[in-house]
């Protein structure tokens, strides 16, 4: 088998299972690729070469012994650095966790290991997943493989870039307001935010607990589904995890059928503020779906316009509390402890030195929003809006099977372009945030390149909670039609690195 790094995960897994290639060969090929290109891309913060090869060897030995392994056994994966991995650096992109090695595995990592998926390393991200460009990483930005001067999206820019740069065929992201989908959108890859509670959060360093959700990323819809099935399902360690079987995502991805499906176009997510090329590719994709037998209807979700405001109260509030534990007392950075200063002073100096500006901005916002006397006006009010948005989705899903929108208003912007304008940065997630507020599921998949800049455009599909399979049913159908039209996956058009 040639060009191991460009193969989909499903193909690699089959080749490994049939002993056409070894897991070690596949892993080594990706490690070599990382060595070659990651200096330019900077997708990885830490490469776990030894443990990856050890995992791959174990897969090969067991296959040689005739053992039947899982459907992704031996396939390499890039893990977002926000998930705890025992004994390996886990920083969440922050200086404050530099040097910390968790003594435990997150549930996602446990399940990856159980599925014999080979973990190549930890990927770069905006600090504590706060951002849409990966520029807020304390360890420097990641570059978009389509154009190294552009952002790979965020917060999971490292995971998306690793896929787009062929450094890994699979990746794990986490999505609090779009951190899986927006990077997928701007890198021409696929990403899914599962239903809240569909994938365990245990071991994910929390940003906003009521919004956070780990999910699968890949270059094809089927690969994404296979990974989703591997990591999903109930976890007794996460009280918010759904106690129900994982939706039939793999079967849905294989069926790839929108015949008779009612697809709702969200009126409020489109139009003004969306880049022309984005709007164009989005409209074309809708035509493709219609051509495949779907019924396209326009639906209104009138409270969507308040989503961003509500999100930027709820997220900072929860984050201000979740990030309190980084106080220099037990792990990670401790600054200013000269033996004279008080515990409060050391905590304060440590947090001043360890957190970046965006993190501090949100901690201050959240602390303020939760303060006595302001709680009702901010946090409680935001929760009311959240309820209204959930009701909007409920009403819409009473009429249609899935909802669609562009994933992001624009293609990848230039590094530094929005760094000094937090509001412009926040607006990037206007179409992805409502999904997290309502706890439903959504996918982003590539639907072409914007004519004006030649950069990937993402298409978002949203489905009701616990109906994740609908994403794959529609996404796989659309992907198949587009691949048919283009003669290849869009990612093949990415420039060589």
């Amino acid at each position: 088998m040639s060009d191991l790094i460009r193969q989909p995960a499903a193909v690699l897994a089959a080749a490994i299972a049939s002993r056409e290639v070894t897991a070690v060969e596949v892993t080594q090929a990706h490690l070599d690729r990382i060595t070659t290109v990651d200096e330019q891309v900077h997708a990885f913060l830490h490469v776990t070469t030894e443990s990856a090869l050890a995992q791959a060897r174990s897969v090969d030995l067991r296959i040689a012994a005739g053992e039947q392994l899982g459907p992704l056994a031996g396939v390499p994966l890039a893990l977002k650095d926000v998930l705890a991995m025992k004994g390996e650096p886990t920083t969440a992109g922050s200086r404050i966790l530099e040097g910390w090695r968790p003594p435990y595995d997150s549930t996602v990592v446990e399940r990856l290991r159980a599925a014999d998926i080979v973990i190549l390393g930890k990927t770069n991200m905006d600090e504590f997943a706060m951002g849409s460009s990966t520029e807020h990483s304390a360890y420097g930005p990641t570059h978009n493989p389509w154009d190294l001067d552009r952002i790979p999206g965020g917060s999971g820019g490292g995971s998306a870039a690793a896929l787009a740069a062929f450094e890994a065929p699979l990746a794990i992201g986490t999505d609090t307001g779009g951190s899986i989908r927006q990077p997928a959108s701007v890198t021409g890859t696929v990403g899914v935010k599962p239903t809240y509670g569909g994938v365990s959060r245990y071991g994910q360093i929390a940003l906003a607990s009521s919004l956070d959700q780990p999910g699968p990323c890949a270059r094809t819809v089927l690969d994404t589904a296979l990974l989703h099935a591997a990591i999903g399902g109930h976890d007794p360690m996460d009280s918010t995890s759904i106690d129900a079987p994982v939706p039939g995502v793999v079967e849905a991805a294989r069926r790839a059928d929108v015949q008779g499906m009612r697809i709702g176009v969200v009126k409020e997510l489109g139009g003004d503020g969306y880049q022309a090329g984005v709007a164009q590719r989005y409209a074309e994709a809708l035509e493709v779906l219609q051509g495949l037998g779907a019924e396209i209807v326009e639906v209104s979700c009138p409270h969507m316009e308040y989503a961003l405001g509500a999100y930027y109260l709820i997220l900072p509030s929860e984050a201000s509390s979740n990030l309190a534990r980084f106080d220099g007392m037990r792990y990670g950075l401790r600054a200013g402890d000269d033996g004279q200063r008080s515990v409060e002073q050391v905590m304060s100096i440590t947090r001043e030195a360890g957190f970046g500006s965006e993190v501090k901005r949100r901690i201050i916002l959240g602390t303020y929003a939760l303060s006595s006397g302001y709680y009702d006006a901010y946090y409680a009010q935001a929760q009311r809006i959240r309820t209204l948005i959930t009701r909007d989705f409920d009403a819409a899903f009473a009429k249609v099977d899935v909802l669609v929108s562009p994933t992001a208003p624009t293609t990848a912007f230039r590094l530094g372009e929005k760094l000094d304008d937090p509001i412009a940065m926040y607006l990037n997630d206007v179409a992805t945030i409502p999904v997290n507020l309502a706890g439903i599921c959504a996918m982003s998949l590539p639907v072409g390149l914007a004519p004006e800049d030649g950069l990937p455009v993402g298409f978002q599909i949203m489905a009701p909670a616990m109906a994740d399979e609908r994403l794959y049913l529609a996404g796989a159908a659309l992907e198949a039609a587009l691949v048919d039209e283009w003669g290849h996956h869009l990612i093949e058009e990415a420039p060589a690195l």
Partner: protein
Amino acid sequence: MTTTAGTDVYLPFEDAIERYEPIFGIETHVELGTRSKMWCGCSTAFGAEANTHVCPVCLGLPGSMPVVNRTAVESTIRIGLALNCTIADWCRFARKNYFYPDMPKDYQISQYDEPLCFDGYLDVTVATEDGPTVVRVEIERVHMEEDTGKLTHAGGSTGRIHGADYSLVDYNRAGIPLIEIVTKPVLGTGALAPEVARAYVSELRDVMRALGVSDVRMEEGSMRCDVNLSLNRPGDGWGTRSETKNVNSLRSVERAVRSEIQRQASVLDSGGRVVQETRHFNEDTGRSTSGRSKEQAEDYRYFPEPDLMPVAPDREWVEQLRAGLPELPSVKRARLMGEWQISEFELQTLANAGAIDLVEATIAIGVEPSAARKWWTGELLRVANDRGLELESLKVTPADIKHVEQLIAGGALNDKLARQVFEGLIAGEGAVDEIVAKRGLAVVSDDGALLAAIDEALAAQPDVAEKIRSGKVQAAGAIVGAVMKATRGQADAAKVRSLLLERLGVDEQ
């Protein structure tokens, strides 16, 4: 002159009560006796090596998440039911945010405006001049939370974090299920306030023990009380309250209320103003010292805990738990009054002494009720009070009482010698038989030895001997006393008396 803090000389209690009306409330933290912690499977056992009963969850490591201990929820509901509370259909945990090194997450998972149990009461009985009086203490709420780690401050003089050279944290205690029971303000108890406060905590402790939800050992900190107290002049509005922490025995509860009434009265009397503050009770001095001022109330930024699902106890489950409640202390006391044939006053004395269970256990193994009561509320309670200890923490068991009683019945010991045996037990000198042997405690029953002692006493007091011979039998006491003294109490006084009269040929009148 005005003062805001306090004065060294407090107003006498009687004067304070004459001028001011005390209003108090008690917050009690009880560590539940679950085997595992509130959010994880770590052991709750007391006394293990520091930081050995810990895991990513109770250490609050990044990424870890809590899972509610169902037994803790069950215990809390049972406590709520026993305290006549309403059990919420639906409630949530909340985060109480503040930075402190004993808090692994820098927030405590607690409950805020949605407690699991609310609006209950506990009736307590106190002795008054007019006989036993029942006071209803209303319960505001019973809620669940987690304990913090334990800080040890090394160096410095105060044992407090400020001024310490360094501090050590033991997270074994972090995440142990804790419930907080908060009373409504208790009004109208006047001079009885200290007794009511003590009786409430004592009754609460007995309820916990009857439920079997906690070992409620105040000296180990598994039950801890904070006393809120304010004074107002009759007719005026409520005064400013102080919160006295570290009140860790029944006796301290009573003393803390009493001394805080006196302290605040002294401040008010000298024209000062009571400061809203936290105070620390000192067991040695029986007084409290000023802690941090709460004038600028700390903002805990409570919000619903997003990592946990709401608690929505099934009604059927609650009713099952209600049906399964054990006999509660007040009911039990009514029963025991009948069984033991004692007055409410006597029973209340037993209850306030924390002696009911001990007496019951002693009777259960075959000791006469009167003897069981006599030992626990007589000699043993006196020793406990002298030493500022709880009765149960003396090293005397119901089995010891039985053993001693058997020795008395067999004539080997008398009451006076038995007291020495208990003294030995409390001093840790060993088991009953060992103490009897080591201390050489035995009733002298050898007639020859007793007669020799009697003759000696008669010879020493010939005038008394003459009186007895002439029929003044009541004078025999002096000779009996002398014989008892000569035998160091190890004789049976009745026997000495009959031998004496026989010796002198006088009949008992």
